[in-house]
């Protein structure tokens, strides 16, 4: 299958800023990419003056901006307008447009809680754990309004717990998983609590739910942890740390300085 080129649109002087991602969008192709890949972040008020200014004045695509405004005024919903933009720009191919339409259809019929959970799950995938936890909490606070089933609540608590674990807040993670366990009644959740306890017994304590797990199962889970540890010890990143220890003082210091700097920046991004 041969490839091709797309002639790029011009770059806007004044970009369109995306809060959730903390980045700016400069071209219409980037906007289409953002809409397709981060649909969960877009609320109904996405079609607003800021967007129209970016398309019309920033990108010089006055016709598209005017068309978007016309559709919005005539009562077209978010999904219809967003699909129109994607179709007119032709950044997505036929298959991608079909996929986008299906996701928009799901969004149209999905419950508010499910839509918010999807947004939070996407934030977790982007390693923006703090933002995800805020949304999980927001959904849980409005439990009655959102008409959450037991299972849904359980899944939210579970995902919130996993987000805490990624932030190395193992105590908070375990608390959330302990509450989720009876709602989901899943052995996998028990295993996750066991793993958290293994990593930080002091923070996690002695969860009551683990007392029901047999010693044979715990031994098997312990062997899994050992396997994961061996895997980590054989990873390129771990080996680079070992190699750095064998370097001269200057190179070693420089390596660890850069590594710590990267980890700190990553963590700052996670907790933003």
């Amino acid at each position, binding site marked *: 299958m041969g*490839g091709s*080129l797309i*002639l790029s649109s011009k770059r806007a002087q004044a970009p369109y800023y995306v809060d959730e991602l903390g*980045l700016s*969008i*400069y071209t219409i*192709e980037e906007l289409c*990419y953002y809409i397709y890949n981060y649909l969960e972040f877009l609320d109904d008020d996405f079609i607003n003056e800021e967007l129209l200014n970016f398309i019309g004045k920033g990108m010089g695509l006055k016709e598209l901006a005017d068309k978007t405004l016309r559709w919005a005024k005539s009562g077209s919903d978010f999904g219809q307008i967003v699909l129109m933009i994607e179709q007119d720009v032709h950044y997505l191919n036929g298959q991608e447009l079909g996929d986008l339409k299906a996701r928009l259809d799901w969004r149209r019929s999905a419950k508010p809680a499910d839509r918010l959970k999807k947004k939070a799950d996407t934030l977790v995938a982007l390693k923006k754990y703090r933002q995800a936890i805020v949304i999980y909490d927001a959904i849980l606070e409005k439990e009655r309004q959102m008409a959450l089933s037991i299972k849904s609540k359980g899944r939210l608590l579970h995902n919130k717990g996993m987000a805490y674990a990624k932030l190395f807040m193992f105590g908070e993670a375990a608390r959330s998983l302990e509450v989720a366990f009876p709602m989901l009644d899943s052995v996998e959740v028990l295993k996750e609590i066991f793993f958290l306890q293994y990593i930080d017994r002091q923070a996690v304590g002695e969860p009551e739910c683990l007392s029901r797990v047999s010693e044979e199962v715990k031994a098997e889970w312990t062997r899994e942890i050992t396997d994961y540890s061996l895997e980590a010890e054989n990873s390129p990143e771990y080996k680079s740390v070992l190699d750095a220890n064998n370097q001269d003082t200057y190179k070693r210091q420089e390596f660890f300085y850069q590594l710590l700097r990267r980890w700190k920046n990553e963590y700052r991004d996670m907790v933003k």
Partner: protein
Amino acid sequence: MQGLILGIDLCDDYCQAGYYNLQNNESDAIEFDEGNSYMIPTVLCKLKDSDDWDYGEAAFKSALFGKGISVDKLVTMCLKDGVATIDGVKYDCVTLTSVFLKKVLEKIKINLGSTTISQVVITTRNKNADAIHNIEAAAVMAGIPKEKLHFATHSEAYMYYVLAQKPDVYTNLVCMFDLTNDGMEYYELSITRGRKPQIAEAVCHELEEGFSLDILDTPQGRKIADKILCSCSERIIGKRVVTSVFLTGRAFDTDTWAENFINVACYKRRVFVGQGLFAQGAAYIACEHEKGEKIHPYTCICSGRIANRVTIDADYFGQARQIIAAEAGSSFREAGIDADFILDDSRKVEFGISGVKMPWQKKMAVLLDGFPQRPNKTTRINVKIWFTEDNVMQTEITDLGFGQFYPSSGKNVRQEFRL
């Protein structure tokens, strides 16, 4: 007020100038001094105990009377990045040429009664094309804005001059002999009709038979010169169907010495003898730049012009487009493209190359080895194409990333193509 549209023919021996007259849509030679002097010797003379310079005939006289030290062959100096030491001070070729050009421009502005310049095209002999980077620096130093400055070979200037004449001048072959102290060059122009667009092709040959013009000072020398030209004419033109013959260069200031040659070469053909042809041709090219559109319907193929069309196929808002990176017949110095594309399931950039005489198109590609792997359609690239000669295309492709989603890796690929 409309500025001057100028052509300057800069050679080692003489400099000539022409301007495009918007009133009658023709170019005319510029007379520098009274007495039909259209040629300025390309000579400078640094006056003693002064910062002033004389140029042209005045420079010859000043040097002759010991009033200063002369320097000539400025074009060859530019070709060789030469330096001249005068009164213990080193002057590089760019400085010297800029002094000369500044003097010439001042004279032109006085003679034509205008101080504004709209366009300038400087033309040089084909073999001196490599001197252009120094001449360009000199011209800018002399006060010509870079965006209004262009260059052309003698072949281009000749072609534009001929095509500006009445069509019956170039019904068939058009030949030209240019005879100066710098040598003898033969030019030939032909039109290929019956295709769209029509092609005008000019070739130039430097003839071994060139001789010093000093031999024309004696009757025997003039006879020998006449014989040499007759021999050239028989060898090159023979019985071919030629509509017009142009004779230019210092040697043809008087053509009475070339009686036999005129009879042989110009029998039943139209003959044009005179100076300033290249300067006037350059002025026609300057007019084309000023108007921003072609002033004749031909695709010009000659030294200094690209013989191929280079295209890139791309989609734009769902429409297939053929982006013209370089058009056949355009000056190689000004052809090229600087544009951004997004890779769609591709790890290469393909160019379509078609010659004016080729009915088919061939493909050439630059592979983007080493460019980062990213999800599809998240790699923007910058494609730059330019020409260093009329058949040598340079390409440079740079990874721009995809905005702030995927930062640029800075990876860059360069490749040269001989078309």
